[in-house]
């Protein structure tokens, strides 16, 4: 179904791209779905980002999730036991970071541009609470490593595919552990080491259905949820006893 939508959208855009009045915008991009619903069967999702350019060029896509404050802890050996000793805080760390490009990033833009637009995992902006700490580099690398291990920072950038030199598409994999919130997909058009066009499109990830209702109830009526959890457990235990009672 999403393939069908893609074809329809691309046909529309090809027509639009041929129209003289619309030929001004260097870049048009969209997602096949702006809402990812986390339901009981949610096991991650694929989001299709597609678009068209006004001529040959390369495309870079950066997707960032909602930001949070993070504390990075380091274990040290104390009396033969490894315990958390040193901690460094980082503010405004994006919960999720995904990137895609049509060519390897280093070939597309100079270093300072990549750093400014936060392209590539090493360029993700994280504000250290104590910027003068001598171990800062070590701790920020550890933070990125932890995010990569949990699949929230993708270390293998997806490849954007061009169809002809104007239409492009890329599949973005959203892992099942994503936090809810508003995400932003930034799409850049690059020519001769320069950004010549950009567009930002939102992506909302939210809980929907039975699972969302449970979550809401647990947070809004915590005491009642606790009582219900106990009653469910009592009933489940009783049913289990009836089911396996020796006859």
């Amino acid at each position: 179904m999403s393939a069908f939508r893609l074809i329809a959208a691309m046909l529309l855009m090809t027509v639009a791209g041929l129209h003289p009045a619309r030929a001004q915008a260097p870049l048009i991009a969209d997602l096949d779905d702006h809402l990812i619903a986390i339901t009981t069967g949610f096991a991650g999702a694929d989001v299709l980002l597609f678009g068209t350019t006004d001529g040959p060029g390369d495309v870079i896509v950066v997707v960032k999730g909602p930001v949070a404050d993070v504390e990075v802890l380091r274990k040290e050996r104390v009396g033969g036991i490894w315990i958390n000793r040193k901690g460094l805080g980082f503010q405004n760390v994006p919960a999720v970071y995904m990137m895609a490009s049509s060519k390897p990033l280093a070939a597309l833009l100079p270093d300072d541009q990549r750093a400014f637009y936060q392209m590539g995992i090493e360029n993700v902006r994280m504000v250290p609470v104590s910027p003068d700490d001598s171990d800062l580099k070590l701790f920020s690398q550890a933070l990125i490593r932890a995010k990569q291990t949990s699949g929230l920072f993708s270390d293998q950038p997806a490849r954007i595919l061009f169809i002809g030199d104007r239409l492009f598409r890329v599949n973005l994999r959203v892992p099942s552990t994503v936090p809810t919130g508003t995400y932003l997909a930034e799409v850049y058009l690059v020519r001769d080491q320069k950004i010549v066009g950009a567009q930002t499109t939102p992506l909302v990830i939210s809980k929907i259905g039975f699972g969302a209702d449970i979550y809401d109830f647990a947070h809004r009526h915590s005491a009642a949820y606790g009582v219900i959890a106990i009653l469910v457990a009592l009933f489940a235990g009783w049913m289990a006893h009836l089911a396996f009672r020796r006859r």
Partner: protein
Amino acid sequence: MTWATAILDWFLGLQIYLPIAEVALNVFLLLGLGAGVGVLSGLFGVGGGFLLTPLLVFVGVPPAVAVATQSNQVVASSVSGVLAHWSRGNVDFKMGAVMLAGGMLGSSIGVAIFTLLRSLGQIDLVIAIAYVITLSGIGIMMGVESVRALRRTRRSMAPAKLHQHNWAQGLPFKMRFRKSRLYISALLPAGIGFVVGIMSAIMGVGGAFLLVPAMIYLLGMATGAVIGTSLFQIIFVQAWVTFWQANTNQTVDVLLALILTIGGVVGAQIGGRLGAKLPGEQLRFLMAIVILVTAAGLLYELVARPAELFSIVITGGGH
């Protein structure tokens, strides 16, 4: 063999999104974990929380959710356990009620200690050390006792003592516990409930693995009623912990608890049937080995250089 891979794909693909844990996990993996721990509980009469909590964390459930959900699941498994023991007349309600009084007080204090340690950022370390100390202590005690008992039965002589005469005989508030065949001070079972209550709140377990040995070795209870009575008091203590966790931390995942319960009750039946074929001393020896292996594993994790020295904690919502 395409049909085999197709079936395998179907099994591997059956993910369920847990609303409170906020992760999608394979249903059969969770059922299997519940069943595996259920077999142990059927065999040994302990909840197996001390194994299930680390396993849940290992497959991706956040530790806080694993601990709280575990309490909820223990309520369910203890209810089905108690009903089975009750129908065979193996629950000493009077003993259970006295232990419960201590247990409620102890778990309240344990919850306060838990909150304090978490604010200090060292809760994981304290939990791990508490596990290593209690598990190795119990494991060694049970191992030595069961080996002694095995030797005794082989020589078929020297029956076990029914009454222990020590300082505890001098304590006040003596009560008669007919089902347990004891005439002892109520302070003893209440004290055991109190101490285990503290431990179970901090360690996020039902505490049967602490209660059962304490009742056998410290109180000298008739072994028949030990498991049923400990389960009876665990229901109430863990129901209280569940309520507190849900009310203050919102970390009880009802769906996860239900799946673990389903796996657990099936496993417990298998374990119970296996247990009926094995004599008690050998069973206790087996349990001692399971406990000591767990303690050794936890100790190794504390002492060995970790593969990753760093860990991250989300501390706030950003600015």
